[in-house]
């Protein structure tokens, strides 16, 4: 009797285990295409670049940290670090203040007008990558610019005047802000409109005016999301490439081929054929991004894992 029960029980356990194994296999089957891509374009390239960064890729011999040494000794690298940090500082500030201010202002006016304005702010998001630079090279050229009167008032007669007047970091920040901020304004429009109305009502009854409502109640409620936007912009900004790379479209005197870090990594691989140095600099850049990502995933609760 007892052994029968035990046999039946162990049979059940075995069947359950079999089923679990089958389920796991099925889950991995569903995941397979994605896991292959994750391996090919997430993990492997990073590992490969990391490995490559320790080799003299021309002779294919291991030489330790020589590539890193080479990158740090290149006088253009510290200069591009300063450039990129200046760009990121301006861009992140512009984005945080601009998006917060416009979102809060839109939330305080009537809904229909706000929606129309939000759409207008959002549409430049369609202008991306090379098209942003081409468009802004026109806009910054006083001979054709739609802002011609403004540029002339500021005493800028040529594109070179405008660019040196604003500064390259500022020019790139304006280009990036023009395209990327509208999407965030739409997102924060949604977030603000879903804030609990009781809190707003209570504050209004207590005599808060619209300005106090915006700065004391709404702003603290969206603050965490604003910070997330700031961090994501910071991480993206470190990788700046397209804007400086395409300045040369305006003519050789505007070319900025080693302005940002990613451009330097590109220069090493494509102008000098030195894949090892390129891999070393890329590894450092990817490393910085991954550290930021780890902080967001583990130190904040922005994204749900379970």
């Amino acid at each position, binding site marked *: 009797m007892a052994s029968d029960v035990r046999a039946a029980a162990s049979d059940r356990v075995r069947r359950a285990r079999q089923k679990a194994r089958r389920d796991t296999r099925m889950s991995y089957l*569903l995941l397979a295409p994605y896991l292959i891509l994750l391996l090919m374009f997430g993990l492997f390239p990073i590992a490969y670049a990391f490995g490559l960064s320790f080799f003299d890729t021309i002779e294919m011999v291991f030489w330790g940290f020589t590539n890193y040494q080479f990158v740090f000794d290149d006088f253009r690298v510290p200069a591009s670090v300063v450039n990129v940090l200046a760009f990121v500082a301006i861009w992140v500030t512009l984005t945080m203040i601009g998006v917060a201010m*416009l979102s809060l202002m839109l939330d305080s006016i009537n809904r229909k007008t706000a929606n129309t304005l939000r759409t207008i702010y959002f549409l430049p998001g369609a202008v991306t990558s090379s098209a942003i630079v081409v468009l802004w090279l026109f806009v910054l050229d006083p001979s054709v610019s739609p802002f011609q009167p403004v540029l002339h008032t500021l005493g800028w007669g040529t594109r070179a005047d405008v660019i040196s007047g604003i500064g390259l970091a500022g020019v790139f920040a304006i280009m990036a802000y023009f395209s990327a901020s509208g999407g965030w304004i739409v997102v924060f429009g*949604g977030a603000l409109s879903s804030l609990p109305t009781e809190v707003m009502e209570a504050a209004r009854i207590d005599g808060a005016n619209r300005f106090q409502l915006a700065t004391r109640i709404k702003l603290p409620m969206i603050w965490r999301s604003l910070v997330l936007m700031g961090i994501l912009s910071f991480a993206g900004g470190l990788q700046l490439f397209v804007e400086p790379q395409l300045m040369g479209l305006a003519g050789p005197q505007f070319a900025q081929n080693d302005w940002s870090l990613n451009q330097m990594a590109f220069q090493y691989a494509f102008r000098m054929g030195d894949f090892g140095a390129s891999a070393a600099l890329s590894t450092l850049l990817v490393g910085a991004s991954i550290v930021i990502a780890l902080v967001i995933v583990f130190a904040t609760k922005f994204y749900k894992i379970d």
Partner: protein
Amino acid sequence: MSTRTAPMRINPGRFVVFATLAFAVCFYGIPLLWLFIAGTRSESSLLTQSPFALGDWDSFARTWTNLTTYNNFQILTWTVNSLIYVVGGVLLSLIACIPAGYALAASEFPGRRLVLIFTLIAMITPSTAVVLPIFLELNMLGLSNTYAGLILASGFFPFGVYLTYVYFSTSLPKGVMDSARVDGANRFQLFSRIALPLARPIIALVAFFSFLGIWSNYFLAFVLLSDDKLYNLPVGLTALVSGSGALSNLPSNDVPIKKPEVVLAAILVVLPVLLIFMAAQRFVRSGMLSGAEKG
């Protein structure tokens, strides 16, 4: 007299709000408006007339012919290439993202948390950070400068997996799933018979974001593709400008690509995204902060 009309209250706070919003309308709106008007104007009109002077049909037609016929209809090749990259990349990303997001949301298995964490890290890491490593890898595999290389690389879309995962975590009908399970349906049948029919909104959302990323991909395409017959539109646009010097204000040459042609090419890059944006603004709202806690 003055008592009869409602007193005109000039509230300085409201004035600042509307002035700022109006300023922003100019900043965001004017360059875009200018771009679309400039496409209809001639080179001399751009340089001598007021910035918003309208063009005419003749100049537009001439610009269009100059642009499309230039270099043996090169821009059409690039447009077709862009379509190939977009269709291939979006399909691949859907094939990879939808089942993966479903598996992560609907089942427990060893390694699940690890896959989720890798997905989040890959999603937060800007895709531009991995462009040169991907080039080094594809170069080794002999896949740089091919359609397949760019399509494969753009099919990797961790954000899509995460969106799908969040979607299925909240929308799968637990009761129906459980009873189908009891009736002996296996995991694959659950996916194809119950989850997929529910997945239409998430498929559209993932396709939307994947399209945006692939259509406007410049950096990766620029690095991977060295043959100008394989360029996509964003890379083609810059090749057009640098090949003609149209933006450099130098003494003119006899290349038929001038400012109006460049404007028109830029419109070709921008217009499809613009149309999709207008049709699907709400997608952005639901997608961009999806899963992030409010406030």
